[in-house]
C-alpha cells in the first residue's frame, strides 16, 4: 500500500475538456457529464442518507444543479468528481439540518483483512468500501476493473469496448489495478494479511 491514501486526485485533462465543452453548450458534453457522475454521486449519497432513495435523488439533483451553476468557478485543482462530492457533503448536511435528524453512521469495517467476508453484514460493508473505491478512481479505471472482475469481460472484449488494442487494454488494466491498490484503504488492501 502506498502513501497516497487521502491525497486529493487532481483534475485530468479529460475533466477540463468536459467542463469547457459544457460551458460551450455542447449537448454531448452534458450527456457525458451526467452519465459519468450521476450513479457515482447517487452511490455516494445513498448510504450517507440512511438509504433514503427519495432524499438521495433530491440531494443529487441539487448537487448537479448547483455544480452546473458554479462550473465557471471550477479551477481544476481537484478532480471533477471530488469537487462534486464536496457539494454533495454540503447538501447532505443541509438535508439533515432541515429535517432535524442526525446522520446515521456509515458502518464501514474497522479491522481485519477485507478478504475475510464471513457474514453478510461484513460482506456488505466490504462491498460498500470496494464500490466507493471504484467510484473514486479516475480515468475510467473503476469501470474497466468492474468489467473485468465483476462482469467477466475478457481483455479482448474490453479492448473492443474501448476501441483500443488488446495490449492497450491490458496496460489500462494494469494501471487500474495499481490505482485500486493505492486507493483502497490502508490495512485492508488486496494482498495485505491483516490490519496495518
Amino acid at each position, binding site marked *: 500500500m502506498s502513501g497516497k491514501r487521502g491525497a486529493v486526485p487532481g483534475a485530468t485533462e479529460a475533466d477540463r475538456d468536459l467542463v469547457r465543452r*459544457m*460551458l460551450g*453548450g*455542447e*449537448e454531448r458534453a*452534458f*450527456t*457525458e457529464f*451526467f*452519465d*459519468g457522475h*450521476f*450513479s457515482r454521486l*447517487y*452511490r455516494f449519497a445513498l448510504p450517507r442518507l440512511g438509504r433514503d*432513495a427519495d432524499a*438521495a*435523488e433530491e440531494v*443529487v*439533483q441539487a448537487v*448537479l*444543479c448547483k455544480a*452546473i*451553476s458554479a*462550473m465557471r468557478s471550477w479551477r481544476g485543482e481537484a478532480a471533477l468528481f471530488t469537487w462534486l462530492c464536496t457539494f454533495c457533503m454540503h447538501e447532505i448536511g443541509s438535508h439533515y439540518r432541515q429535517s432535524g435528524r442526525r446522520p446515521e453512521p456509515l458502518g464501514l469495517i474497522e479491522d481485519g483483512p*477485507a*478478504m475475510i*467476508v464471513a457474514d453478510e453484514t461484513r*460482506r456488505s460493508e*466490504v*462491498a460498500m468500501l*470496494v*464500490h466507493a473505491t*471504484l*467510484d473514486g478512481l479516475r480515468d475510467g479505471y*473503476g469501470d474497466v*476493473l*468492474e468489467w*473485468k*472482475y*465483476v*462482469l467477466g*469481460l*475478457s481483455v*479482448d*472484449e474490453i479492448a*473492443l*469496448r474501448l476501441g483500443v488494442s488488446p495490449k492497450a487494454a491490458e496496460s489500462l488494466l494494469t494501471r487500474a*489495478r495499481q490505482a*485500486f*491498490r493505492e486507493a483502497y484503504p490502508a490495512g485492508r488492501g*488486496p*494482498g495485505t494479511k491483516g490490519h496495518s
Partner: protein
Amino acid sequence: MTNPGGTPPEDDTIARLLEAAGPRSTAPKEREDRVRDAARAHWRRSLEAAPRRRTPAWIAAALAAAAVLAIVTAWEMRSRGQRQPGGDIVIATLLRSEGSMRRIDGTPPRADGGALRAGDALPPGTSVETAPGGRAALALADGSSLRIDSGTRVRLLTGPTLELEQGAIYIDSGPGQGRRAFLEVRTRLGVVRDIGTQFEVRLTADELWVSVREGLATLATAGRSFGAPAGTRLVAGGTGVESRPLEDPDWSWVLDIAPAFAMDGKTLHEYLDWLARETGWRIEFADPGIARESSTVVLHGSVADLRPDRTPAAVLPTCGLKHRLSDGTLVIERLDGARRP
C-alpha cells in the same frame, strides 16, 4: 474468480475482492431520468443566462410557428419503465405492437389468449411470442430498446438477459457510456453480448446471425469469443463461425416498429441524435451555424405516427430548415429565404 491466465497472486486477490463485492448498484431508471431532465433544464437555463449566448430571432419566430403534430398517444405517455400494481419488478414495458403478440409463459389463461397491449409491464421470466406478421417494441428496464420481429419467441430475464428461442430481435442499448450491465442474448448456438451497440440477433433452424449496425458486440460459442464491429455479420452454424461484411442490410422492419420519439420539449440536437441512431444516417450541416443553434432550438408537438425516416419533412421546416439525403448522409440546410441569425 479463477486464475486461468497465470496472473500474479496480488491481482488474483483484487479479482476475488471485486467479485465478492459484486457490481455497483445503480439508481432506478425513473429516478435517473427525473434528475437528468432537471439537471439538463438547469444547464440550458444557465447557458441562456450567460451573456454571450442568445437565441436568434429567426429561431424564435420558427418556434412560434412550430405546430408539428399534436397527437400524443397513450402508449407514448407510458414509454417509461414502471412498476406493476403491488410493486412487482418490471423487466420491460411494451411500447408498441403490430399484429399479434402474446405471453406464452405459465401465467393464468385469459380470454384473450395472453395478448399483450401497449403499456403492459412485464416481470422477469416472461416469455413472449409474435405471430407471423406481428412485431413489437419494448423498453427494457435498463433503458435499452428491444424490437421483436415476426415469428419470434423470446424470454426476458433480469440482468438484462434475453433467451431467444426462435426468430429475430433487435437491440439498441445506447452508446454504452456510463452503463454498468451488459445485455446478453442467449441462444442454443451461442451467447451474444452487447458492448454499447445496435444489433440484430436472428436464429434460424441451424444458424445464428449477429448483425451489428453500430458499436460492437461479441459472440461466445464453443469456448471462444468473437468480436463483431459495426457493419459485420457473424454467422455461427455447424461449421464454426464466419465474419461477413454486412452488405446492403435491410433494417426496414426495425424502423417500422420503432418507438416514437417524445419530441415535445426536446432540442433539435436531441432530435437529430435520435434520428441518426434510428436511421443510421450521418448528419451534416450545410452551415456550421445550424449545428451551433441546434442545441438551443426547442421542439414542440409530436411525430408519434411517423416512421423515423419520414420525420425530417415534418420537423425541419418548422425550424426554418430543409434537408436532402445523399448516400446515407442527411444534409441539413436553411430554407430558402430563412434569415441568418
